[in-house]
Structure formats: C-alpha cells, structure tokens
C-alpha cells in the first residue's frame, strides 16, 4: 500500500502538474512556467555528433526542443552560451549516495552461526532481495555538490550490503527541488555482490564459491516458489519474483570475480551488468566471451615510492605493471568491443575522476566512447535511454556546460544543469585573470602572479622576487588584496573592478597610507607554458608495457601452441608393460604421442636430442590447492553445492612453478573443513590459458570429503558445530545420503508422472547440494576423502557400502596401511604423503612405509603434495617409496604419474606413454627420481609450457621490465606526482586447513 502511494506521488510529480495541491509557506503558489532557452552553444548531443551554435529549449525540467533555429517562446529566459560547450550530464550507476553504511554486528568469533536471524524471509540472511534502498535514503547535498562538480547529474544508489542487496533508487542531483521530483525511480535496479551482509553473522557462505552457489540456489528456489509449492512465506523470494525484470548489477571486483559473476549470470539467465575493479584488461579474451556489460572504475593506482632499493625489491612485478597498464584498461576494453560504463566508485578521491578520465583518453580511449560510457550506456543499462544520458526532446534537461572539449586538461565545468535547474560550479562570467602582472605602488614595482582565478584564487605578491604576505578575494567582479610589506611594516590594500581580461583598474591604499590609482601591466611569460608542455610530453611518452599471458612474471608473449616434436635417444619411462626403454625415439604430433621406436627419421619436426636424458609422462598431483582463489566453504558442515571450478585462479604463479617440477595435471581439492566438502576441479597446467582451456575436458567429476580432527574442529577452539566426534561424522553422512536418496526418489517419481498430471503437480524443489549427493549415490560422481586413522577410513567404506556405492580415493590416508586389505576389497585407492607425520594427534601412527604397504596389498597408491612447495618436487617424493619399503623404481614412479591418473579416471589419456595417448611429457636431465635431476622441458598436449633453457631469458626480461618500471616511477615522483607507500602483496598459500 505504502509503495502504491509512492508511485502515485512519483507519477504526479513526473507529469509536472507539480505540487500545486501542496501547502507552502512562501505565499505565491503559482508554478513557474517560464521557458529557458540556451543559445549559441556547441552541443555534444549524442556522443558522436557535435553541432555548433545550437539552442536548447527547456520547460519544466525537460528538453522541449533542441537544434538550430528552433523558435524561442517570448516567455523564455535566454542564456547566451557563446563559445561554450554542452554535454549530457553523467550517470553514476554504482554509488551508495544518500545511504548510511549499515553497522557491522558483532560476530560470534570462531563459534559459527548456522541459522538465519530473520523470519519470513530467505533461509540465508545475506539475501536481502526484499530490501529497498529507497527506504533509508536521504538526499545528501554535500555529496551531490561533489558529484555535480565532476559532471554527474543522476545517480543510481544502493546500500552496499549483502549478497543480494535489494533494489536501488535513482536520484537526480537537483538541490532546488524536493525528493518527490528528485527521485526518478524508487526501484531502479537489483544489486548483488559476493560479500556477505554486515548486518548478519550467519556463517554461510564463507567463501566466494559459497556465494556463487547461494545465488544459483536462490534463483532455483525462486522458480520453485513461483509454483506456490512452498509451505512457508518467503518475502525475499517474492521480491525476487517481483523484481525479475529490473536490471541486475553485480559488484564483482577483481577480473576473476567478473568472470565468476558472468558465469552465474549466463547459467541462471540473469544478464548481470558487472562492476569490475579496473584490471579487466588482464583477461580481455575471457571477459569478452561473457558478452556482459561492465561497469568500470577509473581508480588508477599511484606509483610506488621506489626510492629505497631494498624495499623496492619486495614489490611484485605485477604490482608495478598494474600501475603502468591500468590507465589503458578502458581503451583496451573499447578495442575488444566490450561494452562498459564508467563509475566513480572505488576512487579514493572523487576529484580525480576527470583527471583520470582524461588520462584514459590519453591512453587510447576514444572521446566518443568515454562520453558514451558516462551517459548513454549507463542510461541504457537503466533502461532510461530516452530520459537521461541524452540531449533530445523529451529527455530531462540534464547537462553540463563547459569551457571547451571535456577531454582537454584545461577545460572547466561551469555549470551542471539537473532537471532544468542550473547548478553553478564555477562562475562562467567570472573573468579568468590568471597571469603575471606588475603593479606600481608608492615608488616601487611589485610583481604579481595570479593562479586559479576562476576557482580558488592564489596570488603571489613579490618585491624583487621576495614573497610578501598577502590575502586575496575575488568575487562579484571585484578583486581585493591585502599585502604586508615586512620592510615598510605596513599594509597595502587594493581593490580592483575586473571588467575584462585586459582591463583591470586597481585602486586602493598603498603602504604609506596614500590612496592610489594604478594600472596592472600583464607580463607575457612563455617559459612556464613551455615547461608544462614538456611535462605533458614526458607523461605521454611513458611506455605502456606489453600484455602477457598471464599478465605477470613468466607470462608468455604468445600462448604456447602444440608442436610436432621428435625426442631422440631418450630413456623412456613408459609406465606400460614395456617398462623403461633405453635409447629410444618418440614422436609427438598434433598433441599426441604418435610413434615410438628406434632411430626414427621424421622430417619437418622439431628435434630434441635426449641423449643421457629421461622422458616420462607428466606428474599428476591428486591433491593440490594451488590455482584457486578460495579453498574451503566452512560455513556449513556440508558444502556439496560449491565447486572449485568456480574459483580457479589461472594466473597463480604456483602453476608455473609446478611446471618447473614436471607437473602437468592437478586436482584442486576443496579443503577439509567439512565432512562433505566441495566439488573439485581437475586442471591441466596450461599456463597462460583461460580457465575453460585449463579444465580437464570431460574428466570424471569429484568431490572432497573429510574425516577426523579438521571436521570435528578439534584444533580450532570451536565447540558449537556438529559433529564434534567421529561418531557424529558417521551419522552426518548417513543423514545426508538418506536425504539425498529420498530427494532423488522424489524427482524420479515426478519425472515418471504422465504429462497431464505433471502439469498440475508442482516440481520438487531443486537443491544443488542434494543433486550432487544424488550423483554420488548413482555412481556419477566420485569421492576423494581426506582421512587419517583406520577407524574412520573403515567407517566411510561401510557407509558407502550401505548406500551401495564405492569411495574412489582416500587422500592423506596415513593409516591406510592398517586397513589396506579392506581398502583392496572395497576397491578404493590411496593418495598419500610420502613421509608426513607428527603435526597432529591423528598422525601419530603415520609411517613413511604406508605407500609401500598399501601398494603391496594391491591398492592403487599415489603420492600427493597438498603443498605448493612440495608439488614442485613430487619426483623426489616418489623416490621415497623406494627408500621406505623398497618399492621398485618403475612402480614408485607410477605413484606420481599413472596411479593418480587412475584415481582421477584420466588414465585412458594420460599417465603413461604409448602411441595415441596425450603428449603430456617431461624431459629430465637425468634419472627422474634422482635428487640431482632437473626438469628440462614440460610439455602439455604437445606444447611446451616450461623450458629450463629459456628461464635465463625470462629472468632477464623480468629484470629489464622491473628496471624500466622503476625508472618510470622515479621520473613520475620527480615530477611531483603522489607516490604510494609501499605494500607487499602476499598471497596466502592454501592447504587443506585454510579456512576460506
């Protein structure tokens, strides 16, 4: 009801019958009905056309006519804007204008909260789809002034709180009218983010993948709710359904998060408009593929203070590159034909907006696109392209009046008109009197320099180049100065009517108390101008460094392509019945192993002499946590709905480091916070490629489970989450699998209905988590389970058997040797550490002979890393199987190649060397398990991703780039630019126990 009344007000307001029925204190109630006519102005109407000596006719806040020779009514007030320019005023899409930051509520520490606080709403408090920013909005005059100063006329404002943040309010920044007219819409767009609301301490989701899963589930739930099948009322879902047609703006942030938001958007058909962070240029290809509109900040980083060489050493190349390349972001987006709007969001100082906009133009952004990105594109995003962001008949009279081209450094914004009302930013009638002058006072010539005369005036008053203290005031056409002369110990007072630039007539009282009349003599000074030009030139000369794949140290200039390669005379570790073959040749064609034999003679291929060297299949790490932006969704004890595939970080330097250790494929596992963890990702370490290109094609789907101390939260000081014992862990599994079974049955029953009944019957609720568990029960998804002690290992096998499926892999499995016989019978593999132990109570009986014992008992055994450090030398870990328990060299090598391939279900393609298999190969300088050997070349699908002999070249390149960037930064600092205090970025290394 309340909402309806409001609509009524808005409606009435908009048809401009005005508030004639509203009481007022000012006596005259008659609406002003005059026209405003702007004449002789240069109009940049649609961003691509510029027309001179134009007129705009405004009536009641809107443009009623625009163009040359339009008739101007007699009751029009004329604004002659000869030599001035007009642009549509800008639209800010992403602000919390007029809204207070919500207060953060105190969390519950390490004891997690699982249930929502709100009742009658969605099951997750961080979904605030029912929230209307309009409700809490109050017009903020100060901020409006700031926004108008940099050209904005309309802002789309929302409260930045929650994963679904509810709806925004659209406000015209007009100080002269009330909210009834100012509010162009009380519900303009829906807003989203990956961050939880600060107003609830509900634990879930605790990771970005959790947020992604939550948004998916939200829309599945909305679709289900639409059928009126729910037993409870859910105002959040109702709001989702009500607002389904509103534009949806997603504050994603970092480039990878932009991809993530885009991914959910396309999966759920939501067409997100995605707000980035300014580093989108680093992933152009993938972002282009999203086909989404972006909102891009202009928050170009300050250079680092590099004056201390020791500290400078700690700054990452990527940080310095970002400084160098970020101003090119908008231009690169334009070149890639990605549609984007610009925003003031994320700018530390909004006053820098125009400066940065111009910087972006200097870095190649076209003026046309720059203007569109602030006007028509945001207008279209808001579905308001006929009302705002344009200058045409029927649109709001929202425009800025400038002294010249907006993209010229010297151009000033004089006025910002909103809904037909002029807001003065700097007095366009104020005459610019910047310059150097001489004034004769008493018996001396004084020098006078005036700067910034049209805004906050600065004056230098000098006698024989010694500065005198002075105060100056310049308004209403009068310049007033008080000057103190130390020698004379007296003041001079000057006042001067400014008539025109050339005609300044000072008079006043000089230092001796005498009245005077004088003439200011302007002095020409080209020198300063010259300097400035020089500086601009230098600024422009700064070289923008080339993009790489990935855009970081060790990135490629071109993504590696498969090559046809003949390895000659190698020792070949086949992992097949042929075993280890000496002095043999191997041919790779089209990414596959095409021929193996003695003395092969093939033309037109790259030949690599492998004399004395060993060629093996690539190392496969069954348990890795590199290459991901988050690892654990610890907000619930089951998180089957999340997937690591959502959070792959293809730019993680550890990928390249792994390549240098001969690793070609890894499984990125979810962490071990929960008994039921998240789904994992199997990727090929194709450094420089996109996430989609890295994901192993059609690999078997996996999920991580975990047992023991971590899921009981034994070592975290948290005592409130079920389960706290291994007994609880078992029942948790049984509970979830039982429910998944019933869930699956519900869908089977529904799908088996005949067509007519089906139409009448509501669909069961689609539950992502249950879908995943149901996949497990059907044998369509495999479990890799973090495990330590024999009791729990045995337990999980029994639970699986009870539900008639099998565990695929126990990972860690440090007491596997105690139940190896049972594992063999169950058919589960063991992916273990070679020799880790003693780090917690449950590894007390962990022994380095574990791998050998399980292997001897017929279990498929792999050695994994769980560590970004160790994964680079898994070959050495494999060698420990020889030392501890005497596994043969050939079998030990399989622990890190063929066996993990088997456990991951990819051994049909990789893991061994035979004709037809994928060419994921590593060339070693010697025996692959010798402590003295190094990787020489790592090949994936026939392309070289790591070549040791190219390393010095790459390192030299990195050093050169660093030198270049440091020099640039020193130059910039020398020219007086701000520099940033140094901060050293450190990525956290993830392992199983990382809690996010």
């Amino acid at each position: 009801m309340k909402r309806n009344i409001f609509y009524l007000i808005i409606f009435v307001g908009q048809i401009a019958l005005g508030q004639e029925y509203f009481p007022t204190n000012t006596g005259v109630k008659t609406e002003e009905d005059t026209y405003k006519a702007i004449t002789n102005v240069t109009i940049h109407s649609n961003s691509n056309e510029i027309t001179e000596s134009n007129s705009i006719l405004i009536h009641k806040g809107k443009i009623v006519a625009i163009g040359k020779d339009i008739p101007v009514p007699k009751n029009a007030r004329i604004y002659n804007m000869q030599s001035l320019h007009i642009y549509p005023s800008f639209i800010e899409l992403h602000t919390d204008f007029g809204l207070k930051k919500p207060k953060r509520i105190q969390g519950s520490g390490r004891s997690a909260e699982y249930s929502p606080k709100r009742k009658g709403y969605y099951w997750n408090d961080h979904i605030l789809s029912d929230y209307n920013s309009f409700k809490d909005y109050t017009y903020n005059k100060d901020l409006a002034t700031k926004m108008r100063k940099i050209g904005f006329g309309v802002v789309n404002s929302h409260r930045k709180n929650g994963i679904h943040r509810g709806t925004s309010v659209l406000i015209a920044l007009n100080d002269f009218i009330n909210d009834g007219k100012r509010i162009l819409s009380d519900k303009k767009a829906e807003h989203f983010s990956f961050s939880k609301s600060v107003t609830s301490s509900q634990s879930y989701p605790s990771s970005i993948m959790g947020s992604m899963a939550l948004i998916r589930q939200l829309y599945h739930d909305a679709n289900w709710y639409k059928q009126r099948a729910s037993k409870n009322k859910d105002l959040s879902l109702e709001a989702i359904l009500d607002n389904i047609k509103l534009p949806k703006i997603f504050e994603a942030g970092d480039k990878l998060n932009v991809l993530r938001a885009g991914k959910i958007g396309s999966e759920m058909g939501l067409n997100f408009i995605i707000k980035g962070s300014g580093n989108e240029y680093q992933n152009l290809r993938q972002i282009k593929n999203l086909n989404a509109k972006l909102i891009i900040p202009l928050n170009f980083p300050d250079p680092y203070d590099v004056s201390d060489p020791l500290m400078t050493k700690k700054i990452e190349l990527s940080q310095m590159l970002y400084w160098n390349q970020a101003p090119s972001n908008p231009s690169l987006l334009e070149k890639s034909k990605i549609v984007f709007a610009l925003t003031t969001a994320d700018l530390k100082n909004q006053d820098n907006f125009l400066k940065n906009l111009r910087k972006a133009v200097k870095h190649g952004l076209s003026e046309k696109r720059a203007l569109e990105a602030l006007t028509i594109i945001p207008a279209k995003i808001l579905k308001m392209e006929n009302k705002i962001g344009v200058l045409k008949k029927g649109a709001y009279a929202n425009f800025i009046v400038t002294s010249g081209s907006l993209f010229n450094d010297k151009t000033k914004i004089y006025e910002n008109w909103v809904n037909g009302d002029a807001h003065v930013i700097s007095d366009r009638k104020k005459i610019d009197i910047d310059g150097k002058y001489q004034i004769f006072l008493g018996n001396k010539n004084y020098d006078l320099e005036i700067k910034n005369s049209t805004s906050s005036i600065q004056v230098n008053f000098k006698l024989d180049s010694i500065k005198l203290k002075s105060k100056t005031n310049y308004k209403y056409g009068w310049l007033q100065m008080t000057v103190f002369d130390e020698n004379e110990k007296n003041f001079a007072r000057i006042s001067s009517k400014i008539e025109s630039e050339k005609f300044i007539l000072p008079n006043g009282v000089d230092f001796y108390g005498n009245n005077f009349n004088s003439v200011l003599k302007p002095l020409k000074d080209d020198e300063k101008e010259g300097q400035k030009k020089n500086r601009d030139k230098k600024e422009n000369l700064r070289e923008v460094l080339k993009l790489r794949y990935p855009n970081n140290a060790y990135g490629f200039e071109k993504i590696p392509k498969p090559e046809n390669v003949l390895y000659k005379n190698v020792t070949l570790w086949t992992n097949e019945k042929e075993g280890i073959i000496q002095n043999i040749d191997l041919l790779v064609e089209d990414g596959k192993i095409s021929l193996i034999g003695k003395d092969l003679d093939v033309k037109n291929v790259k030949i690599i002499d492998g004399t004395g060297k060993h060629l093996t299949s690539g190392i496969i790490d069954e348990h890795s946590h590199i290459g991901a932006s988050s690892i654990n969704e610890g907000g619930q004890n089951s998180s089957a709905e999340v997937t690591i595939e959502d959070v792959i970080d293809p730019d993680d330097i550890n990928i390249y480091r792994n390549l240098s250790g001969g690793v070609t494929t890894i499984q990125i596992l979810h962490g071990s916070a929960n008994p039921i963890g998240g789904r994992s990702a199997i990727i090929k370490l194709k450094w420089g490629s996109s996430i989609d290109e890295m994901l192993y094609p059609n690999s078997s789907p996996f999920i991580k489970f975990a047992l023991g101390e971590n899921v009981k939260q034994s070592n975290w000081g948290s005592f409130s989450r079920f389960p706290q014992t291994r007994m609880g862990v078992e029942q948790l599994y049984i509970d979830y699998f039982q429910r998944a079974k019933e869930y699956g049955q519900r869908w089977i029953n529904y799908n088996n209905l005949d067509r007519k009944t089906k139409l009448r019957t509501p669909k069961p609720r689609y539950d992502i988590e249950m879908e995943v568990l149901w996949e497990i029960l059907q044998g369509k998804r495999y479990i890799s389970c973090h495990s330590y002690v024999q009791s729990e290992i045995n337990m999980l096998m029994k639970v699986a058997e009870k539900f008639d499926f099998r565990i695929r892999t126990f990972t860690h499995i440090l007491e596997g040797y105690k139940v190896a016989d049972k594992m063999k019978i169950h058919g589960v593999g063991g992916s273990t550490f070679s020799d880790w132990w003693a780090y917690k109570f449950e590894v007390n009986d962990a022994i380095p002979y574990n791998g050998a014992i399980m292997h001897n008992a017929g279990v498929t055994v792999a050695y994994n890393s769980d560590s970004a450090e160790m994964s680079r030398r898994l070959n050495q870990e494999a060698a420990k199987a020889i030392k501890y328990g005497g596994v043969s060299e050939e079998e030990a090598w399989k622990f890190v190649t063929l066996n993990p391939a088997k456990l991951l279900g990819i051994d049909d393609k990789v893991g061994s060397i035979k004709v037809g298999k994928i060419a994921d190969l590593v060339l070693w300088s010697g025996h692959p398990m010798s402590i003295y050997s190094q990787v020489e070349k790592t090949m994936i699908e026939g392309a070289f991703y790591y070549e040791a002999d190219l390393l010095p070249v790459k390192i030299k390149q990195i050093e050169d780039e660093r030198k270049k960037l440091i020099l640039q930064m020193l130059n910039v600092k020398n020219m007086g630019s701000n520099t940033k205090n140094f901060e050293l970025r450190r990525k956290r290394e993830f392992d199983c126990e990382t809690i996010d």
Partner: protein
Amino acid sequence: MKKIFHLIFLLIVSQLTSQQTPGSLTEESILFIGATAHIGNATIIENSAIGIRNGEITEVSTENLVEGIYDQTIDVSGKHIYPGFIAANTSLGLVEIDAVRASNDVDEIGDMLPHIRSIIAYNAESKIIESMRPNGILIAQVTPRGGFISGKSSIVQLDAWNWEDAVIRYDDGIHLNWPNPYTRGRWWLGESPDLKVNKKYAENISKIEDFFENARARSVVNSKTKNLPYYSLNEAIKKNKTIFLHANDEKQIVDGIVFLKNIGIKNIVLVGGRGLESQLNVITNNNIPVILSHPHRLPSREDEDLKQPFKLASKLINEGVLVTIDVQGSMERMNTRNLPFYAGSFSAYGVEREEAVEMITLNAAKILGIDNQMGSLEKGKDATLFISEGDALDMRTNIISRAFIQGREISLESHQTKLWKRYSKKHSKE
C-alpha cells in the same frame, strides 16, 4: 576436556616405552673395508678402510694401507660410509605433536630469555628423534624458539636414555631473533595479509640494544643481586659463546650483524639468510658462517628466479662462506630427517656433491663448535658414522644398514619401522 588430556598423556607415555634402547659401546674394534668413504671435508676415499676402536676413529685410509689390527674386519664394498649428519638449529625433542599444546615446550613466554635452556626440556625418547637415525642424522642442535632472545641451545647426540646422556655440548649459544622490518596484517581479523613496513622496527631494535647495554652495565659493577637474564647473557658473552642471529631480510641481516659487531661479539652465526644474496659483503667481510634455512622454500616474490632458493648455497660457498642448512619452518621436526635430501637438492644447482655432504657434516660441526669431535671421518674423532647402501643424499639410495654414535652401534628401528613390519606381516599372511 581434562579427560582428553589425560588420555593423550597416557597415550604418549605408553608409546614412549616403545623407544629403542640406546646402544652400548662396541667392545670389539672394527675395520670397515671397501666402501666409498665420504670424509666430510669434501673429499672421498674409494676402497677405504675405516677403523673404530673404543669409540674413536682410529683408521682412515685405503685397504692396502691399514696400520692397526682389528677384532673384526667387515667388507662393505660397494657401500658408502659417512660421518653422522649434523642438524643445526632444530627443535627436536621440544615438541612431540605440533597440534597438541601439551606436548609443546619450544617457546617460553617473554621477549628476552637468555637464561632459558633448551636442554632440560629435550625429550631424548621422542618418537620423532628415533626417526632421524635411519636417515643418517645422528647429531642435532636443540634450539628454543620465539621472542627476541629465545634462549640457549645445546648440542646432543640422538641416541640416549635422557638429556644428560645426550649432551655433547651444553648451552653452545644464544639465539637472537632480529626484529622484522615488516609486518603482516592479521587476516583472521579482516586485515590485509599484505606485508607492510613495521613501524615498530626501530623501537624493537632499541629494545634489544637496551637489553644488551643494561646487561653490560650490570656486569661491570658487583651488584648484590643477580639478575638472571642479564647474568646469563654476560656469561655467554664472556665465554665467547656463539650468538646465533636469526635474520632473513636484507635489512635484518645487516642491522643485526652491525649491532653484534659493534658490541664486540666474536662468534656470530647467521641463521636464515633468505635475503643474503645482495648483502654477501657483510658476511664475507666479517667471516660469518651461515645456517641457510628451509632450502626448499618457494621464492619470496612471484617474479623472483624460480630456482633462486636452490642456487643460494652455491653462491655462498663460492664466496668462501661456511654454510650448513636447517629445515626450520612448518613441520620442522619431522622434516629434519630429510636434511640429507635438502643438501642433495643443492647439488642440482651448483654445489659439488661432496660439498653438499660437507655442508651437513664438517661445516655444521665447525659452525656448532664441535669439529674437534665430530663432523668428519678423521683419526681421533668420535666414531660417529653410518654405512649406507648408496649415496645418502639421494632418497633412492639413502638406505642405512649400520650406524654408530661415539662408537656405540645404535638401533635403526623406530616406532615407524615396527608398525611397518607388524602390518606388512599382517597383510602378507592374509
């Protein structure tokens, strides 16, 4: 809760009894012939003859040049003999299980603790310690951690009934952790995990300076009261004990060394050394040995040379620096058994193979001040050595058949080998 602790306690105690019985002095003299002897000073003797008698090495020569007469002559042709490996800067015996607080005795509360002595907490019967010996690690420095001055380390041999029997050198040095010029945000409180300049760096340095200065002032006057920390520090300085300066960052290294030199410390050992490459002069000019920490670590920066951590040792050795290594860091105690492999990996990056052996034998002995007794196969030194099937720096061939500490043949069994045998037997029967 209490019950759990009791339970853990009981379990630990009950497992302690499974510890191997320390060996007793081999009465017969033995001559090992035919092996490749890795002397420990970067040389080898092929077809060697190594004799031991009464706990001492009495013969280091080749088969045809043997002088003495031995009760037993054992042919170990094709095998390798090494002096016992020496692990510097370990915390062996001070923590049993990382996650069990009750088993942790490594870090005492307080910043300035020169009086704290690691040796009395050293658990000679730790299960982790017995897992060192089968890999050739027979000697270790036991070091407290934490604070600015963590306390005193001692040097032990790894086959003893108790700490008193284990000691080779009491209180060999004081460990000084130089303050960090950088701090990291506490991410769990929502702070950025980025490193930032530590605003308290200067303040922390002056804390250390004050402490040393106050201690010195105290030593010149005969005070009626005895301040334990000051007294301990003064005694150590007076006796020229080594100050182990733990420092990784360039500034840390330089500031720390300059400070210690200025106050006249003679024996300084640098521990850590991550940023040493650009500050080699300060090491070489002052003749300071280095314990390189955690050689398998990842590079500090994304764009740093991938192999930099592996290359550092050879750079130092080429500059004539005395270098050994440690495995300080995550899981450092259990990982100490991998010391030989850490040394071996340097060999792939420029360190000569025998130099790699030297790093963890004679170099370590020199740095710890026990080279008169340990660290190489030389006549007159303790018979602390082992026989390996092959190259002991390579996992595949580090298979040790016999080991002696001061002439006592020690057990190479452990909790782990027992479980191995027990369960291998179980599964082979079935």
